[in-house]
């Protein structure tokens, strides 16, 4: 199992290299620069000398291949560079923001799993029932909502109208501030998970070994507990891992809306201000998170399904 995990980890390397190359290329041709972003709000005057000095300090006046060389060389030493805007190491800036994002993603996943998984199960166990229909209509609706719109709606409902929860921000890092953004971010994976679970359970329920299990004379509870859950999970877990990626993307929107101090809002700010090292670093870290989660999923998959690890 350890070797399997190691092998999967090693397989990440080419992807990581390709991603870092790609984002370097993209952000070396993007218009605008850190210098121009400094006067973007019309305050002060544009000081051409300052612009020159800024470009010099950050090596932006060097030709592309030299810049790429420097970038690749630092990356090879696990150095993400220095932020143009703050002059702090990118890694420490990302370090500050990573935990809130992971917390948000984790909480959203929890929302999705805690609600979506059982809902999908129940729907599948009574296919065609009212509950099943409602769940599936709800699920497909959940997948059809623009996320920031949904966020705005829950914000108005739970924070403004009902006054139950704070509407924004990180607070002291507690649960109260986490609920609304996690809910907003969790709705799409929840819906998808409910659908996937339902489909997976239906598929398993039609399997031959379920008929065998029935012929043993077990009740539905034991049938589900002993034979359906694990088999359905195998099908669900893969979806969950892949879903994590698009959730990392959606986190950008949700973090911005809820003023959540995560990697997503750091990324979107840095794109706007053309703080390129931070942009590159953030994307790289997001991709790494995604790859790690999917490796974890693969390992989990192997743990659950003996056919993988033995084969």
């Amino acid at each position, binding site marked *: 199992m350890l070797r399997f995990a190691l092998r999967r980890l090693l397989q990440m390397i080419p992807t990581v290299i390709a991603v870092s190359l790609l984002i370097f290329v993209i952000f070396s041709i993007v218009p605008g620069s850190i210098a121009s972003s400094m*006067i973007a709000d019309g305050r002060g005057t544009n000081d051409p000398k300052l612009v020159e000095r800024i470009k010099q300090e950050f090596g932006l006046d060097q030709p592309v291949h030299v810049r790429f060389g420097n970038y690749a060389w630092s990356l090879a030493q696990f150095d993400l560079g220095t932020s143009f805007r703050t002059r702090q190491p990118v890694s420490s800036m990302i370090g500050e923001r990573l935990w809130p994002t992971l917390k948000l993603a984790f909480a959203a996943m929890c929302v999705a799993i805690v609600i979506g998984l059982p809902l999908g199960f129940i729907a599948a166990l009574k296919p065609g029932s009212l509950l099943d229909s409602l769940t599936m209509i709800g699920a497909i609706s959940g997948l059809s909502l623009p996320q920031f719109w949904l966020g705005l709606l829950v914000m*108005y409902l739970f924070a403004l109208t009902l006054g139950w929860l704070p509407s924004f921000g990180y607070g002291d890092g507690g649960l109260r501030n986490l609920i609304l953004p996690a809910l907003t971010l969790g709705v799409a994976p929840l819906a998808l998970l409910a659908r996937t679970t339902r489909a997976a359970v239906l598929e398993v329920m039609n399997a031959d070994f379920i008929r065998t299990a029935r012929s043993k004379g077990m009740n539905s509870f034991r049938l589900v507990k002993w034979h359906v859950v694990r088999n359905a999970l195998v099908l669900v877990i893969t979806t969950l891992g892949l879903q994590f990626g698009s959730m990392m993307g959606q986190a950008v929107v949700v973090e911005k809306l809820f003023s959540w*101090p995560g990697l997503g809002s750091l990324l979107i700010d840095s794109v706007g201000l053309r703080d390129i090292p931070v942009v590159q670093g953030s994307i790289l870290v997001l991709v790494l998170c995604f790859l790690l989660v999917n490796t974890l999923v693969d390992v989990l998959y192997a743990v659950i399904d003996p056919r993988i690890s033995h084969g």
Partner: protein
Amino acid sequence: MLKKLAIISTLSASLLAGAASFATAEEPRSGGVINFVAPYGSSFSSLDIHASAQVQDEFWAKAIHRSLYDWDANESKPVLELATDVSVSDDRLTYTYKLRQDAYFHDGKQMTADDIIYTYTRIMDPAKAYPAAQYISNIKGATEYNEGKAKEISGLKKIDDFTLEITLSDPIDPGYQFMPNYTAIYPVGAAEKEGFFTNPVGLGPYKFAEYVPGSRLSVVKNDKYYDTGKPYADKVNIMIMGDASARDVAFRNKEVDVSVLGPAQYVAYKSDPELANNIMEVAEVYTRHVGFSPDFKPFQDKRVRQAINYAIDSDLIIKRLAKDKAYRASGWLPVSSPAYDKDAKPYPYDPEKAKALLAEAGYPDGFEFELTATQNESWGLTIVEAIIPMLDKVGIKVKAKPVESSVLSEAVPGGDFQAYMWSQESGPDSLTALRCFHSKTPQASCNYTKFNNPDYDKLIEAARQAATDDEKNDLLRKANNLLQEEAPVWFFNYNKAVMAYQPWLHGVQPNSQEMAIQSYEKLWVDDTVPAR
């Protein structure tokens, strides 16, 4: 006019708030927690204010730091802050400051002339490109130091611990140069010390307490602040809240004590009987305009530029779209400028005249141009969307070209536009603002429309040399009116900043520079503040 406006609105606010609170308004109460907002973005860039160029960072800097001068919001002028007295030489180049002897940094060290020299020298660090350098570079020898040609800044001279002599390279008002929060004074050697930028130390009324990146920065009362009796509140939480809708909800939810309002919210708050009581309106020093490129043929003709000014119903846009959250521009200098011409008339809405002018200029059927703008609701695509049908009526087709703000601020100084829409600082120093249209000012700096008019240049030169303020303002007024006549831009409006504050918050100041940047030490909360 501005001052009156601000005073009237605060007055009416406190009157409306009722007699009870009026009584308490007399006597500031100490204690309590203020939840302030930093609304211009979703993060602070760093805790090194010299390295920043973003208003957003002034929100925390204003609490922790102090600069040599400060902005007097009520008088709308720079005033001495860290000095008690200043004398100026006859050539108006050398200033001698008597520094205050009761100023202590949060770590207990007393402030001396060395700290100021250290700070200004650091800002000009040859190895770094600190944005704050633009304010310091007017000190004699600063540029040489920055370019590595000198070992120190020759214009900075310590007479004794509490006497500092600063020599400028140009006879300009140093108040505007040494007032910005970006030039905050650090204790000697602080920036080289480990941990200064995670736990900054300053001279301000509040001490750094905690920073949750991207979320909030908290400061606590500095008991040794030199202005005795202040600050009032025990703690200020500065919440980072870039999203206007989220801010709106938070404010209504009483989670924050202030909110900066957009046009739509301004209307909503004004029509809400409760919220309407506590709104502060301030004429800020930004002029919103559409600049015309002199390289684009039709715009080389003054009549075309004027025609556009006639063709757009600016008043209607301000009334309906900006929801009266702006003052109609009748030239470049804003309402709060001492050189503002109260009698100047803005271009009236007259599409017939516009058509006639266009025909005269040789464009009876109009023409098409591309207008580069950002998403901004007050000086971006929202306004452009309203202009398009208006100009269409006189035959001018406008193609909107949306860009990100950092792309606009590269394209405009680079001259890469046919027309652009932007908001440009037009104060507080009127001379600085109008110098942007001097023919010697390069496009890359701030003469974005490459304005070139010898008469105008003469007026500006004269104003620079003017002996008295009245004389100077007179000349600037003339220059401003000339500018309006020449119409290098469509004069849209001057920003009216609007801030809503909770009924328990008092001491809000009408800061025309940037209303949301408040002197925290003057704010206080009464006992109706919710428990925090």
